[in-house]
């Protein structure tokens, strides 16, 4: 019954005209950037984050969340129609979706993707509503030692689930942690690594780092080989899938939702990993795996359900623990901090309208997305004809204005350029940018809890293993790291990500 009351409170927030409007703006923008290859939700949210300062906290989060799950819907359109991932989380959808489109079944493929996403969105909204409150209550009992161990576990998981070399992912996290420490030490007031620049006294601007690493570096990657996009299907007719299609898609949608919901909660998880993993699961379970890659409807239904479920459940650790599972959630935490709200388990108690408003808005947003994506698919197809050389100057202009508006500080723009360069070089040499940003957000938190735990324990390093919950978390972290390093598992890890070739 408490749940119903909470949901009622949530809907009364989410259905306020201003929130409905910005939810719509969010999912519209999300669909747009989802459809357009070359710009992702991380860069978009980083660009728009400063602007949300003028909104109420609930409105800000509702809009930013809409961009993230909206992008999951939009990405499938591009994947199906032009065999390019509009979003990296839709890369696997392109395999079978594009084949379906070539067989003249673009309509049913798009409809299946939308139905799968909507079902997954609804289920994961319920999962969020059910699991977030007990987790928040549990997290309230956490002390500094538990928080420290939890963050270590989170960072280890994000290494285990990262794409590619473990050593490189670890190095990126540690670099991120170090960069996060730049600025004035909160305990002693000593400036650290500021190179005597007054602009660095408050640390590197989080928005600037995110825009540089995800926005600028991504543009440079895209400029490496500019090519024209060929839209295979100009007009989409006959959207409705047949009964046989729906029957074939039902079980994969259910499984995809489950896989996505679980992987979304894990640090380093989220939408991308969810879609890859669920495609692998479907192929493994299928009695006719040879149909995959040749237009199997399961290959569209499962990953699309999974990426949307993963996108939404990744809000659970962010809302309840204040710990980001992926870079987008790191940005959400940034948005909360800009609003003067300390992320953590207290949010659910102190800001129930915000907490439940964001959760229920996701269901409202999913409903809008189905309406936006299916009947209006023609508009999105037309959008795809916008060439990239028109798009990226716009991204640069929005980023510059967005970053500058945070502090009205020109130095932040030099930071953007610097991190754009660093991000491009590191990505070019085979690193993933996501762990860097996670480390950057967690660096100060990790140090603070470490130092606090040491003060409370009078300098006893064993405190982390003497407190049972903290010991359990660290034990799981060691286990995860050990399992990841097993030769058999590390080969499997590579397979999961190579599936797209």
């Amino acid at each position, binding site marked *: 019954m408490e749940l119903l009351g909470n949901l009622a409170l949530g809907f009364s927030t989410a259905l306020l005209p201003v929130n409905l409007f910005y939810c719509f703006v969010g999912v519209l923008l999300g669909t747009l950037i989802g459809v357009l290859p070359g710009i992702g939700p991380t860069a978009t949210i980083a660009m728009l984050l400063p*602007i949300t300062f003028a909104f109420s906290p609930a409105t800000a989060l509702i809009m930013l969340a809409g961009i993230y799950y909206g992008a999951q819907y939009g990405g499938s359109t591009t994947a199906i129609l032009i065999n390019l991932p509009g979003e990296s989380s839709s890369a696997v959808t392109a395999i079978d979706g594009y084949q379906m489109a070539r067989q003249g079944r673009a309509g049913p493929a798009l409809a299946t993707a939308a139905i799968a996403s909507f079902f997954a969105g609804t289920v994961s909204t319920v999962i969020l509503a059910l699991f977030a409150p007990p987790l928040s209550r549990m997290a309230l009992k956490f002390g500094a030692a538990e928080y420290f161990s939890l963050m270590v576990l989170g960072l280890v998981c994000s290494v285990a689930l990262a794409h590619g*070399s473990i*050593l*490189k992912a*670890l*190095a990126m996290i*540690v670099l991120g942690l*170090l960069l996060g*420490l730049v600025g004035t*030490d909160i*305990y*002693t007031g*000593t400036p*650290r*690594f500021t190179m005597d620049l007054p602009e660095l006294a408050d640390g590197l601007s989080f928005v600037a780092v995110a825009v540089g690493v995800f926005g*600028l570096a991504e*543009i*440079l990657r895209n*400029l*490496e*080989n*500019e090519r024209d996009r060929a839209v295979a299907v100009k007009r989409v007719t006959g959207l409705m899938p047949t009964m046989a299609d729906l029957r074939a898609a039902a079980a994969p949608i259910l499984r995809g939702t489950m896989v996505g919901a679980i992987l979304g909660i894990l640090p380093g998880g989220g939408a991308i990993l969810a879609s890859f993993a669920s495609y692998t699961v479907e192929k493994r379970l299928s009695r006719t795996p040879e149909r995959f890659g040749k237009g199997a409807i399961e290959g569209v239904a499962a990953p699309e359900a999974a990426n949307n479920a993963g996108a939404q459940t990744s809000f659970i650790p962010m809302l309840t623990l204040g710990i980001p599972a992926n870079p987008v959630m790191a940005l959400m935490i940034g948005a909360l901090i800009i609003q003067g709200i300390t992320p953590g388990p207290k949010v659910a108690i102190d800001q129930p309208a915000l907490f439940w408003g964001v959760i229920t808005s996701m269901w409202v947003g999913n409903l809008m997305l189905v309406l936006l994506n299916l009947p209006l698919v023609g508009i999105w197809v037309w959008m795809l004809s916008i*060439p*990239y*050389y*028109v798009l*990226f*100057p*716009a991204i*640069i*202009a929005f*980023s*510059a*204005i967005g*970053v*500058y*508006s945070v502090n009205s500080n*020109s130095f*932040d*723009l*030099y930071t*953007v*350029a610097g991190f*754009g*360069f660093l991000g*491009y*070089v*590191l990505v*070019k*040499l*085979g*690193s993933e940018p996501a762990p860097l940003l996670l480390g950057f957000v967690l660096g100060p938190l990790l*140090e603070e809890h*470490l*130092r606090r735990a*040491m*003060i409370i324990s009078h*300098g*006893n*390093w064993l405190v982390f293993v003497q407190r049972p919950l903290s010991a359990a978390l660290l034990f799981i972290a060691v286990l995860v790291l050990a399992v990841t390093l097993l030769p058999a598992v590390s080969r499997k890890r590579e397979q999961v990500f190579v599936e797209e070739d």
Partner: protein
Amino acid sequence: MSERAAALGAAPFAGARVKQINHRDLLLGAIFALIGAGFVIASRSLDLGTAQRMGPGLFPLLLASVLMLLGIAIAAQSFFTVEQPVGQVPWRGLVLILAAPVLFGITVRGLGLVGAVALAVATSTFASRRAGLMLGGLLTVGLTIFCVLVFSYGLGLPIPLRGPWLWF
């Protein structure tokens, strides 16, 4: 598949295993190690404190040492893995895309929002090999008007439209 085929094609008469260095990883490892070393040196001037009252230098020193070791490990590993191509670098794009936000930062106070946006857009358009003068001009004018409408009038950002460098 294709990679293996390419590798075979590149060395058709190599009977024994050719020793290869992955230069990409070597460079990456070196970068991490250098950054780590830089942070180690910078943290040495900071107070380490005691275990109970950790000073500002302890945690960074720890992290920086780990980063240095990870960098060395990545570099060492590169001697045992196969070379991976780095691919082409869009040099013109690199210079212009990185210059655009810097130019915006330098001029936004002096020229105001209109001038700074126009400059950033104009600079970045030419990062693409596809954009000509005509298109660049059109994009600059169009995007500048769009940004002013959205950010200044729509969202009410308090950045002055024109700055003191403009005398007219």
